């Protein structure tokens, strides 16, 4: 018995294999690319893990008391090595015994309880930027609550709040 040897030619077979491979890659890529992108997104904050630091060179990071009202003087330094990437804003968390108050600071914002310590900078808030015009800035936050600790968090353009950059205990100003 002689078997029929007819079938797909080797050229067509090769083409079919190539097409099959490309289609398979495309299908796999449609799953893996978004997955990898999502995974890499979680590393966005890596650059800013210690970007903001509380600075004590001016002797602030303390509060003054005027009757019930307290003025918290906070000095922040942008200490990042990268000047190419910068956070969009920052988030300050003021801790008291019974809870937390979150204050988000963005360039150009005006907040009723938060002003720049140096009035010559105007009413709009500015965040410190490493390598920028103001790498170190101080804020004056007014509140009736007694806070004992402040934490700072960098916030990215997509409003993603990164891990804590730094924290400091707040004491009463000595002067």
């Amino acid at each position, binding site marked *: *018995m*002689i*078997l029929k*040897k007819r079938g797909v030619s*080797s050229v067509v077979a090769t083409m079919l294999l190539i097409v099959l491979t490309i289609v398979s890659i495309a299908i796999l890529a449609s799953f893996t690319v978004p997955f990898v992108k999502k995974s890499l997104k979680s590393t966005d904050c890596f650059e800013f893990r210690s970007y903001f630091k509380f600075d004590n060179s*001016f002797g*602030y990071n303390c509060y003054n008391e005027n009757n019930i009202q307290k003025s918290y*003087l906070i*000095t922040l*330094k942008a*200490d990042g090595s*990268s*000047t190419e990437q910068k956070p969009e804003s920052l988030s300050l968390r003021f801790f008291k015994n019974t809870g937390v108050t979150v204050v988000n600071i963005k360039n150009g914002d005006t907040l009723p309880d938060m002003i*720049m*310590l*140096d009035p*010559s*900078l105007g009413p709009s808030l500015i965040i410190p930027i490493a*390598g*920028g*015009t*103001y*790498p*170190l*800035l*101080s804020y004056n936050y007014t509140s009736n609550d007694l806070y004992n600790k402040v934490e700072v968090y960098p916030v990215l353009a997509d409003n993603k709040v990164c891990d804590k950059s730094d924290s400091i205990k707040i004491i009463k100003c000595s002067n």
Partner: protein
Amino acid sequence: MFKIGVSKKGLSPVIATVLLISLALVLALIIFIWARSVIKEKVEKFGETIESACDDVSFNAELESSGRVNINNLGNVPLYGIEVRKRGLGLVKNLGAGYFDNGLPKGAGKFDNGLPKGAGKSVDIELGNPSVGEEFIIVPILLGETDLYKKPYTCSEDFGKIAEVVA
């Protein structure tokens, strides 16, 4: 007796090897391009990280009320330039931004071939009518090297020097 015809057609070992090598090369290229974009460029000075070189910088700085800054390099690390910062009410303002404008750091003083050990040089920087006794921070700028090109690097303010304005 049955005679079964077995086709021996297929890719030759040479073509198969070439295909495998091509595949490996393409994969390696893709990984290399991806890795280059992910891994940060390393700036070095004298074969070590430039941050370490900043630690070895030593210089004297003097500011004149005219806005002239006199620098005398005392260390072994050549200075590429300086950045002047001013301390205000709870703030530090960068007077020399350190950004590049036509290849030169905008607002920052730049020494053409670096300032070697023992050499002194003056640069004019806009200090905005400083008064005698006013304090400024002089931060050194070094010229680092990457694998492909040279790149200025502004040291941390911790390596800066506080200089007073003299008459």
